[in-house]
């Protein structure tokens, strides 16, 4: 399938705090092709996290249209957004965001349980994904028993569970030492090459961004010209 996975037109995101308006995104226009490997870079406060939330359907824009895989998400309700997240988007966060009480397998299997699949089926798929990210020997451990790099591998396996169109990674190496960070980036890169999924990495680390095919630089809530 060709075409654009994301099309953002004149997107504004405005936060109102005690009567003071802050524009996190200021009329941003952006198109990302299916299968792209892109980095969004910029200093903190430049709006890159807000942009990722909007593209990841965690948030809707105050103004403008956001097409995800051709569907306008700007006026969707919570549950409709959740469905799109579940089906089309895999998240990898800086803080891994695994559920502490659950084992690696249960964490990876969780999104599939949400879409009504049984425990056994979900866990079988989770195990095959955990093997792919090199965690076959650590699958029954809880997050607290895993190293940072291992936790991020679990998160990557989880992001792949529902076979999404896009992997959105927010500072995926931010909490890792440089060697582990490189290993995680190798894994993500390998994933992109093998599956041809769209991979978008949000980072302020230019070294990391240099490894991607395209860089989108953000300043003050818009893309730097």
């Amino acid at each position, binding site marked *: 399938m060709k075409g654009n996975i994301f099309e953002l037109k004149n997107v504004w995101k405005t936060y109102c705090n005690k009567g003071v308006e802050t524009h996190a995104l200021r009329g941003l226009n952006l198109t990302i092709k299916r299968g792209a490997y892109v980095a969004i870079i910029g200093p903190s406060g430049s709006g890159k996290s807000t942009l990722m939330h909007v593209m990841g359907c965690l948030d809707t824009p105050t103004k403008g249209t956001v097409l995800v895989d051709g569907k306008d998400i700007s006026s969707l309700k919570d549950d409709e957004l959740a469905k799109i997240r579940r089906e089309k988007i895999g998240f990898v966060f800086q803080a891994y965001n695994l559920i502490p*009480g659950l084992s690696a397998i249960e964490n990876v299997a*969780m999104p599939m349980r949400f879409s009504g699949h049984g425990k056994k089926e979900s866990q079988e798929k989770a195990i095959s994904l955990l093997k792919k990210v090199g965690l076959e020997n650590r699958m029954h451990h809880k997050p607290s028993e895993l190293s940072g790099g291992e936790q991020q591998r679990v998160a990557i396996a989880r992001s792949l569970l529902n076979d999404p169109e896009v992997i959105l990674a927010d500072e995926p190496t931010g909490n890792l030492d440089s060697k582990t960070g490189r290993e995680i980036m190798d894994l993500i890169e390998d994933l992109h090459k093998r599956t041809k999924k769209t991979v978008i990495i949000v980072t302020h680390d230019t070294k990391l961004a240099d490894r991607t095919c395209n860089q989108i630089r953000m300043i003050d809530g818009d893309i730097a010209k």
Partner: protein
Amino acid sequence: MLDLAIKNLLENRVRTILTALGIIIAITAIVSLGSISTGLNELVTSSTATIGSDVIFVMKEFDFSEMSGPPGSFEIELLSAEEIEDITAISGVERAVPIIADQFGGLFELDGLDLDSVDLFGAEDLSFEEGGWPDNEDKAAAIGYLVARSRGVVVGDYLTFEEEEVEVMGIFEEGSGSYDLVVLIPYEYAEEIYDMEGEAMQLILKPDDISYVQEIKDIINNDMDGLSAMTMEDALAQMEEMTGTLNIMTFGIGFVASLVAAIGIIITMYTSVLERRRQLGIMKAVGALKKTILKQILEEGIILSVVSSVIAILLSFFFVDILNNVLLGGSNLALITPELAIGAVAYGVILTIISSIYPAWIAINTDPIKAIRDG
């Protein structure tokens, strides 16, 4: 998703156990108190079956509002020998049986009456576990099963009333309804013990025909000063009113206990949701719908309440056993019926679901972005 709910409950064991304790105490209170009400209701119902509907009870008129103070602090006026004579003379009265009654030990009653007339109360067919009826000339008693058990007496032993030792001649079989609670002695013997001459607390009338009941009742109530007559139906209505009051009190206490439990559940679920804000945010971020989150919170509540309620029912059986054996002298008065047990579990579950609504509402409205960023 039930496995995830159980995991969450086990994650914070202390909190889960404390909440469960709240539910257990409330349900145990309801079931244990309810068992007494149920038992008394059964007793009243079984009395209806034994006593004929064609008898009339006559007493001195009295005002319920004067019945204040501790038991025994007021006295029911006695029917005089002349009044008894007048009533017996009313046409249509076949038999008049005077009764001398005395409450003792809280639940029990001594009745002095013509033992040849016990058929009026459906007592002539009562079976004895030991001994039998005394004659009207004997200075002895036939006593109820519960009286015997609570006083620890067998046939041939003595019970003391007004410093007079009364020999036990017969003990009714267990399950004789209200007869479990009585001591029956001949009228003349009661006269002697209570130092009376032809007087009575109550007079039981048997009309020649059931059709005279209303007429006789009207004559006594309207034409005879200071007297009050009522039928078994009237008496039962009064008893039901009393057990009704007891029911309301029982369930009132249960209601207060369950309010406290409900607040406990709300606090637990609420803090649990706040503590898991990040987890709930992650769940939403990776695609959990609101109903998925709602389902999980409710599942946790239902597991908690079903387990707690079942434990409470088991505990109640234990408490009711103690109640029956220690306080009610080996009786089976307090009764846990299947309806009571099932009703209590259902109540526990409904209580928990209602208490979970607010915490669940907070949970399903967790903002995934905030939860993830702050975590």
